């Protein structure tokens, strides 16, 4: 009997990124839920606890992804969800981000600049799910 597919929640306000990520991840056998902002994501997170989240930063507000990551880490039910943050915030602000050095200000497992190519996305997803 095969294992249930892992569920990944993709949160991004760019519909093209969402569509492309969904295509890549579903083709690789993952179940994908999507949200275009933190509010929608929180509605989904009320119903399910995904195995992984792919999270943008700059959505309806410029720090929305950070704020959502703080809420997730502060919620006992959700706090263990691995988060892959994927954003162009560095390119747009000139600031660099690194979960290893930014500590609790960036409570995600990995931070990767956009655009991310499909093999890299899948490799990161697999690595984070394995480490779960």
């Amino acid at each position, binding site marked *: 009997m095969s294992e249930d597919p892992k569920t990944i929640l993709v949160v991004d306000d760019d519909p093209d990124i969402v569509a492309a990520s969904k295509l890549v991840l579903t083709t690789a056998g993952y179940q994908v839920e999507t949200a275009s902002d933190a509010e929608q994501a929180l509605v989904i997170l009320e119903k399910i606890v995904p195995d992984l989240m792919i999270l943008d930063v700059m959505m309806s*507000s*410029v*720090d*929305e992804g*950070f*704020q959502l990551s*703080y809420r997730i*880490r*502060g919620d006992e039910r959700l706090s263990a969800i691995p988060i892959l943050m994927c954003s162009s*915030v560095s390119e747009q*602000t*000139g*600031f660099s*981000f690194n979960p290893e*050095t*930014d*500590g*609790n*200000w*960036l409570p995600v497992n990995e931070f990767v600049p956009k655009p991310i190519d499909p093999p890299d996305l899948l490799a990161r997803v697999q690595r984070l799910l394995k480490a779960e």
Partner: protein
Amino acid sequence: MGVEKASDVTSVEPVLATVSEREELAGGHCRLAIALKDALKYKPGQYVQIASADASQALPIAGWNNDFTRIEVVVPTGQSKDSALLNVAEGDRIEVRGPLGRHLPLSAMQGQEIIVLAASDGIVSARSLVQYILANRGQYGSVHIIYGTEHPKDILFQKELNEWKSAPKVTVKVIVERPADGWMGYVGVPTQLLPSLGVNSANSYAYLSAPNGVYKFMLLSAGAIHLPDQRIWLMNDKRDNEGAWVVMNAAEYRL
């Protein structure tokens, strides 16, 4: 609206002074109250260079009062490389040079709501601004103070924070990253609490004071509540030629 310039003040003649009080604070810090022989007219955001018999150190001015013959600084004493004044004691004679560096745009801030977003040691220079506003209460709008530390045991000026909470038109929110048993307050980082302030960004100024690496998060979150760069000031972690801190506008910081 262009970038507002704070004035430069570079009085460099040293003033003779005596350490009138030394108080051990939380998190490996001590507060020194310094009695000056001659008045030293400073404003929030400025710093002083302090020289004892065997050490010299630049430190932000940590308080404000309108008797300019007394200043306060906070010296990191625990496991710090910046602890040149570690052994200064009450009664020691020292020299104080200053005030140095720029000060905050206090005139432009008049009539405005003031947001103070401080992390870790950043509360030290923020205390100067808060004390200044409290001493000139009628000239400023509401003050919203958000202060974050890693552990509850690192919180500086705990008693004073409680006093500020009961001051008119002042709110204080303290948040810690790693709560201890019994901690009933906020958990996380200070920027989490910014959206809850509900401030009118067109009528507000923010002062950010934090260690290296944190300003990028603070600037993004200040932008998220629609504060323009011209209304955001910070204690720059890029040191000036004196090896000390300089307040600057967010637009300058981004250059």
